[in-house]
């Protein structure tokens, strides 16, 4: 049953994309089933490499910011009373009830020159001129962090809940201040949460296309945006498929490298 489900919903589409990635583009944009590796060869272009690198950096930055912002939130949630925990969980989940596109547009309203943030700053007299916030790298990063923060928080809550409060008390009894207790006890023991959350944030961020397009103004090309354009604008499905596989391969390679580094450190 499980293999049927996986085969039908996961493997078949993947194989289809793999098939298209080694086919040729038709004269007017269709797929012609002439086998070629040309699509993969085209990816060796330094321009494409730069786009991949930029996407990985953005996703890495997003993951890092999510971890830094998400940890205190997750810690408070994990150590809150049951009623508070339920309330906070609901608050974290509520944005998901609205369409992602609508929420991204909302950020445009906040960030643009005459937007909520700028007009507030000017009314308070902190700024005399509006700041350029929209269509910047920072705006893309803010949008990505906003979109994927819950995916970091939820695994972290689970991981922190598993750490016995007795360990924290033992650390405090052994002269640890709250800060050093967090650093030496809670952070290292939350590692499974950081790993799961990191993967859940990094993977969608690296392929994100709506956020860079809407909040970055499409000025900086990202892998996700590129793939979307190959499919919908250039109508070059085979190259788009090859790029998708390239992205998948890159993520798998990174995942392999990270897990190997971590297990090596553990073995020491």
């Amino acid at each position, binding site marked *: 049953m499980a293999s049927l489900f996986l085969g039908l919903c996961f493997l078949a589409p993947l194989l289809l994309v793999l098939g298209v990635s080694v086919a040729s583009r038709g004269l007017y944009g269709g797929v012609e089933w002439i086998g070629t590796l040309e699509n993969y060869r085209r990816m060796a272009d330094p321009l494409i490499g730069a786009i991949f690198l930029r996407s990985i950096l953005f996703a890495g930055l997003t993951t890092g910011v999510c971890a830094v912002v998400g940890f205190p939130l997750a810690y408070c949630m994990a150590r809150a009373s049951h009623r508070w925990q339920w309330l906070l969980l609901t608050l974290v989940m509520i944005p998901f009830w609205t369409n992602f596109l609508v929420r991204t547009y909302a950020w445009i309203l906040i960030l643009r020159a005459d937007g909520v943030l700028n007009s507030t700053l000017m009314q308070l007299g902190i700024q005399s001129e509006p700041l350029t916030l929209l269509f910047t790298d920072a705006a893309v990063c803010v949008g990505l962090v906003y979109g994927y923060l819950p995916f970091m928080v939820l695994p972290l809550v689970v991981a922190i809940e598993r750490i016995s409060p*007795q*360990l924290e008390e033992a650390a405090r*009894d*052994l002269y*640890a201040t709250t800060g050093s207790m967090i650093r030496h006890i809670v952070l*290292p023991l939350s590692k499974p949460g950081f790993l799961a959350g990191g993967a859940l944030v990094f993977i969608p961020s690296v392929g994100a296309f709506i956020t860079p397009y809407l909040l970055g103004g499409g000025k900086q090309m990202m892998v996700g945006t590129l793939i979307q354009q190959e499919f919908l604008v250039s109508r070059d499905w085979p190259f788009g498929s090859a790029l998708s596989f390239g992205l998948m391969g890159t993520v798998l390679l990174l995942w392999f490298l990270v897990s190997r580094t971590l297990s090596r450190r553990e073995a020491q």
Partner: protein
Amino acid sequence: MTTTVELKNVVKTHGVVTAVDRVSLKIGRGEFFSILGPSGSGKTTILRLIAGLDVPDQGDIFIQERVVTSDPPHARPVNMVSQHYALFPHMTVFENVAFGLKMRRKRPRDIQQAVKQMLAMVRLEGKAPRFPGQLSGGEQQRVALARALVNHPVVLLLDEPLAALDQRLRQEMQGELKRLQQEVKATFICVTHQQDEALMLSDRLAVMHGGKILQVGTPQEIYEQPESTTVAKFIGLSNSLSGTITRIEDGLCWVKHEAFPQVVVKCPPHGSEQGPVTVMIRPERLHVSGEPPAKGYENTIPAILHQTVFNGNEIFYHLRLRNEAIWIARVPIDETHTRPLAIGQAVYLQWSPSEGLALSH
């Protein structure tokens, strides 16, 4: 006796429950002090208050004559070994033991030496690079002790230190705890619900019930002269009989119960007016006989043998009294009769006046 830890009128409530109810206590330097009580009697809360993990609602706590009531745990010269040890699972034995010294920014070379010495003291020299998950329960217990003692605390707090160990290890660790305490010369405060543990280990002990301290004394005082029926019951005096004092003479009381002949026992420790009392007799002091009263025992009451429980070197007789109460007598094997008592047989329970104690309500 110099006082190391003092509690003055300490009150601590958890919601609507009063966990600790106006407790005052003085614990001397270098004492092995136990707090004995059933679960929920507030004994663990007292430890947490001394450690600084809880703050009292009222009253004050002194350590070495300094008020520490609202000091955080890391500012107190006190360390605690919790019931489940709470060893840090991601650190080796060495790192666990070194933790407190590292937090106090001791020099790495000194830490190295102190941890090594401490691990030798608890006989875990070879286990330094292991992780807690690779150790047996007894070894984990000793790591927890080492982790606390390496800081040279003025007071070591132990929460049910032996509860998680099996019978054999428990006996071994009892000796170990005593030895460690004499070696480090710190004050040990130990919380337990095992009366034999408290009696064996302690220099003095307090019996707690319902958030209150009922009696404080040496093990012998508590065992020989319990001041209330609750203390007596907790310390193993399970046989009781309520009655009324009819006569008092030379510290002995004559107690009357409508179903039995009059019995003579020791009088209540505090004041002995005539009135209702409970007579308590230890199981090992009861003499059980199938034949009518022998000489030398002044108290005799009839009973029916209800059940016999054999325990290797002694026999426990469960006896049904005329008022339906069940008493227990503990008899060493070599004292039992050649002809064993049969279940359902009528027997006579006998004891001399000094073996029984009357306690006022």
